[in-house]
């Protein structure tokens, strides 16, 4: 008797009709968007803030360095002594005082610059000041050696190395960014999916135990059918929720940015500023074109197929373990001791993905971790946009499927025994014994 469709249907409908599930489905995107909007608004507010920085330059070398910008006004206090200047700045409630002490030679200046302020100054402000001073000092040193300003200007070059593979495929730096984004999104999506819906499966197994319905059910269906039905039903509910999130999130994003006129993409962080500068240099149009070629350069078909296989494989692998944990314990507080061994490889995978794959997508570490079944779904998904030979993908998938089958067998064993055990908090040793029952 195959009851799998029936079980899947029940699991799916119970999840989807659950009040808190419905609330979360529709509230989460709202909360997310609201958060993003608040952050964007605040950072804009922060950028709009006017600040005055007083400069006391006793050397006179750095006269024209400090030009007023949109947010920052520089006021010169030259001629005052340091103590008076500090008192004055305090009284004016300026952001701070930049003091360049009197020195004999150009070389000593760098050691005699200080910034006085009420609170510790922001990193961006300080590094901005440093950049300006460094540039001026370098120019002055060069000038001292007889190089003219024009020569210095003329010596500035900007390099953009054109990349081309042996097969003649052109690519650019933007390509890598796009690849990283695709891989990163895919990997992170899987990670989130496993954690959210794995937990949901675990809770639903525990619920069956605590409500004592399990023995009634298990006298009608095989435990493994019940387990698989649970996993599949919950996953389908998960996919439903995810799709709604994406659609709703997208719509809300558009609506919110239209209403508040906040350009969400323009959140000014220091890194982004630099990226923006680079982009401006290239020209927005060229940039957009590059982006499109970059996306079309991706191995799209491979990406989609691999995403499906690794996503499903990785998710099923982990969720069967979650189901086993749920079966082994009586309540959610007892799950902690078993959660760590599951979360460790998952977190490791994300770390490897974020740090190593970006650095070197085909290096030893990345390659090895894209074969180990517990990390391979995340790491491989991050690697694939950079082009992974099909045999590697195949082998990794084969290992994943093998491990998945083993994990389901293992989980089903634990599940079969565990669901009928009440009132015990099992140890690892006991779990091992269950395998032999």
């Amino acid at each position: 008797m195959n009851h799998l469709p029936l079980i899947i249907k029940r699991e799916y409908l119970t999840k989807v009709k659950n009040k808190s599930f419905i609330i979360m489905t529709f509230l989460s995107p709202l909360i997310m968007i609201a958060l993003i909007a608040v952050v964007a608004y605040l950072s804009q507010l922060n950028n709009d803030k006017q600040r005055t920085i007083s400069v006391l330059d006793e050397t006179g070398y750095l006269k024209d360095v400090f030009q007023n910008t949109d947010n920052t006004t520089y006021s010169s206090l030259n001629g005052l002594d340091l103590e008076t200047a500090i008192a004055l700045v305090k009284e004016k409630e300026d952001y701070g005082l930049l003091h360049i002490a009197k020195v004999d030679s150009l070389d000593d200046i760098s050691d005699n610059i200080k910034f006085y302020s009420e609170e510790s100054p922001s990193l961006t402000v300080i590094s901005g000041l440093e950049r300006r001073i460094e540039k001026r000092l370098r120019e002055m040193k060069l000038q001292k050696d007889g190089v003219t300003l024009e020569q210095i200007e003329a010596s500035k070059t900007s390099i953009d190395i054109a990349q081309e593979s042996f097969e003649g495929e052109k690519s650019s730096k933007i390509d890598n960014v796009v690849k990283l984004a695709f891989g990163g999104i895919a990997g992170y999506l899987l990670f989130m999916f496993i954690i959210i819906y794995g937990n949901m499966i675990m809770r639903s197994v525990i619920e069956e135990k605590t409500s004592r319905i399990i023995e009634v059910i298990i006298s009608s269906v095989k435990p493994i059918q019940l387990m698989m039905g649970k996993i599949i039903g919950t996953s389908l509910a998960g996919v439903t929720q995810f799709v709604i999130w994406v659609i709703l999130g997208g719509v809300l994003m558009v609506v919110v940015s239209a209403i508040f006129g906040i350009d969400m993409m323009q959140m000014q962080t220091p890194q982004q500023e630099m990226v923006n500068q680079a982009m401006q240099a290239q020209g927005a149009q060229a940039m957009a074109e590059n982006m499109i070629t970059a996306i079309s350069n991706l191995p799209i078909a491979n990406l989609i197929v691999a995403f499906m296989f690794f996503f499903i494989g990785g998710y099923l692998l982990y969720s069967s373990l979650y189901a086993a944990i749920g079966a082994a314990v009586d309540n959610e507080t007892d799950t902690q001791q078993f959660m760590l061994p599951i979360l460790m490889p998952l977190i490791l995978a994300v770390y490897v993905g974020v740090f190593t794959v970006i650095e070197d997508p085909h290096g030893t570490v990345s390659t090895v971790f894209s074969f180990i079944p517990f990390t391979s779904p995340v790491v491989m998904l991050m690697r694939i946009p950079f082009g992974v030979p099909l045999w590697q993908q195949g082998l990794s998938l084969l290992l994943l499927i093998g491990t998945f089958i083993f994990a389901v067998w293992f989980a089903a064993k634990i599940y079969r025994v565990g669901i009928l055990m009440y009132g015990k908090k099992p140890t690892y040793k006991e779990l091992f014994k269950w395998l032999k029952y």
Partner: protein
Amino acid sequence: MNDLLVADSVSKNFGKFKALNQVSIAVPKGSIFGLLGPNGAGKTTLIRIINQITMPDDGAVMLDGQPLKPEHIRDIGYLPEERGLYKSMKVGEQALYLAQLKGMSKSEAKSRLKHWFEKLEIGDWWNKKIQELSKGQAQKIQFIVTVLHRPKLLIFDEPFSGFDPINANLIKDEILKLRDEGATVIFSTHRMESVEELCDHIALLHKSNKVLDGKLNDIKRQYKTNTFEVGLQSNNSDVVLAEIKDKFEVLPATFRNLNDDIKLNIKIEESISSNDLLSFLATKAEVHHFVEVIPTANDIFIQTVKNN
């Protein structure tokens, strides 16, 4: 084939613990079979093996002459001791789901459910959630779900727990009715008075072994001690008492009756018939009360468990 279910030297180990040791039982068709035993004797393990929830390490179980196979699940209705329902699911939906898991079609399940709901006068519960019902009410649903698919074999593990006396009686009558309609019932309980009322056959498990089985009446016959409970009235009771004590083995007895009697348990040898005893007593005093002491299921249970 008169036995619906036969378990033949079934053994089951959990690690080093032996849960069942070569246990054999035979449940006759159309009987109510009491599966008794102290806590941890292995009753639940045996029941789970019959339900194919766990597999025996050794031995075989036959249902209707065939070795147990997955299809037999729909021939069995099982009400476990540890039972419950999905709390947040509606009564009707849940009953339909469980019935479908037993292999019934949705429409068939629905019409039979309606019938049962009317019979037990709970028709208005259909759209309630289980968590809105009381424990006894939920138990009713559970009972209906167990018997809905008209199984040949019904297994009840402590079916009356959680019921008030009225509902317990209702369920008891339903069980008897199902038996009369041809179902065979395995009944596991610690409440000996319901064993007395319901069971035709019993088997007693103790420490993973079967220590006793057979027809309840046969077992009682085996365990009877030829003792009679007697109430006498006489003007000189001391003399009468001395005479009886002289002739028979006498124990004090306690029972309730209207007169201020001499109350005795008199044990006689097998060669003497009850009539002989009665006529002897009649010559000595006025006999108000004369009953053979038949061991109760409770006595048998305690005695057997203590002796093993």
